[in-house]
């Protein structure tokens, strides 16, 4: 029994070595490169030896059962995870070649180019306009005309302009859940990030709104690199180019989405995507 586990482990190591970027001969640029990342909440070891390369202008999906560390990994990429005081990490994450986990790297700068969309739509209790203008304003853009342009552009980019253009001064809480989530995406677009992190962005939405957001993601990937955590495997299969399968804080398998869903190399991946556990 213990022997087979050990065997599986070595297997798994070999598998991941296969997907290492150097071995992939990819033409695409790497935005996020994670090397031997470990993360602890106090004494809880939440991420174990993560090695993962995220490619530019692709949709990268992260799947896995609840509590396996998907959100934690995502929040490490913009260092939001540091809001939990007990967190400590080891390993290296580079963003466009720059090491982000070092203390010298300003989190504000990182988060300006790495936007985030959360599981539950979380607009500010302000007007639709002020929600979008929030990012530019905190970064020092005050010119009313420019702000107007940014607001329109971002709302158009998130395909919600037509629905809200006549009520920009109204409170964002008057929007439906799906609209709120697209507003949050628009809010992220307003500061023109390179990367957008999305943590189960559709899990609180109805199927129709989910569909709209999925379409939007397909559009956005032309200009942005997107990393999306999802609970929904069909969603990952539909919208992503690459998929990473997390289990118990480890990356079990990371490959092109087609490969993961048609020909996974790890038994556990197969079990998970065929619904045998999780």
């Amino acid at each position, binding site marked *: 029994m213990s022997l087979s586990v050990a065997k599986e482990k070595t297997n798994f190591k070999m598998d991941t070595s296969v997907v290492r970027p150097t071995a992939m001969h990819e033409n695409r640029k790497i935005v996020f490169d994670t090397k031997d990342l470990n993360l602890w909440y106090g004494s809880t070891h939440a991420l174990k030896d993560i090695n993962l390369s995220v490619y530019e202008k692709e949709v990268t999906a992260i799947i896995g059962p609840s509590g396996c560390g998907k959100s934690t990994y995502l929040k490490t990429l*913009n260092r*939001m995870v540091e*809001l939990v*005081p007990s967190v400590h990490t080891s390993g290296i994450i580079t963003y466009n070649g720059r090491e982000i986990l070092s203390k010298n790297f300003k*989190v*504000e*700068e*990182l*988060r*300006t180019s790495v*936007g*985030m969309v*959360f599981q*539950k739509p*979380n*607009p*500010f*209790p302000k007007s639709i306009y002020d929600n979008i203008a*929030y*990012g530019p304003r*905190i*970064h020092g853009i005050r010119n009313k005309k420019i702000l107007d342009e940014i607001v329109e552009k971002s709302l158009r980019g998130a395909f919600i302009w037509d629905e809200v253009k006549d009520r920009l001064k109204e409170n964002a*809480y008057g929007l439906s859940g799906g609209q709120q989530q697209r507003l*949050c995406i628009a*809010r*992220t677009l307003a*500061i023109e990030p390179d990367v957008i992190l999305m943590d189960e962005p559709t899990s609180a939405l109805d199927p129709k709104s989910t569909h709209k957001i999925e379409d939007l993601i397909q559009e956005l990937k032309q200009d942005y690199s997107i990393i999306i955590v999802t609970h929904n495997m069909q969603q990952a299969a539909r919208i992503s180019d690459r998929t990473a399968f997390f289990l118990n804080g480890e990356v079990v398998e990371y490959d092109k989405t087609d490969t993961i869903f048609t020909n996974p190399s790890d038994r556990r991946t197969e079990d998970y995507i065929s619904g045998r556990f999780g």
Partner: protein
Amino acid sequence: MKYVDAEQVKKRMNGRIIKNTIFKSSFLIATLFGLVVLTILIYRVFADGISWINWDFISGKLSTDANRAGIMGAILGTFWVMAVVAPVTMIIGIGTAIYLELYAKKGRLQAFIQTNIANLAGVPSIVYGILGLTIFVRAMDFGNIVLAGGFTLSLLVLPIVIVAAQEAIRSVPSHLSEASYGMGATKWQTIKNIILPAALPGILTGAILALSRAIGETAPLTVIGIPALLIPFPGGIWDKFTALPMQIYYWTLDSSLVEEYANLAAATIVVLLLLLFLLNSAAIIIRNKFQHRF
């Protein structure tokens, strides 16, 4: 063999139920007792005072002659004291709350400050009066002016504002501040633009409650030596002053000498209670109107 005798149980049952009913009524009576006293109190005050309230009484100067006495001086004094207490307690109270909730590391120092605030809330108001007398009136040599009274009362109600502001800040859901941090906002930007606006209704409610506590406080003012019969109106925070509760105090004490003073005291109480009523209504309106749907 049965241990429980059904007959016996039944027999006792009625008694137990009757006992329950009797006690229930006595509990209700106890609850209503306070309200009955409150009604009598308010009725008495209005009965004694309402006929003495007219424009001359409101706008007039203080006087030993009951028929000519007015309370404008005391109203202005109370106003100026509040003009000190409100900003001082808001700034320091909110600042302390932000520090404790959002900056302080959870540890010894933070726990110590927190315990200290809880203890200060239990210190009798008259002790604050002595602090004010020693520090503001004597050591800083302000004398018994509005500023000294205002600072003294500010220290007294500060714990109320701090605790209310802490609760309000704590109740702002973390997903709002996360959204802000996620856009690259700094901590202070997030606090200023997101957390404080969302916490504001709760903070204001607490501040108003603190203010109404300060308006009614008498003991500290007696200790810092607020005079009984001060004719000139205070024009700012550097002037000597008297306040509504002080006037009530002196007129009540002297009502055994001049009977009408009791009416003057009652009339002043009516004014004070109306003021408190207005403040508390404002607090309730703020709370209901700005309740967020986070």
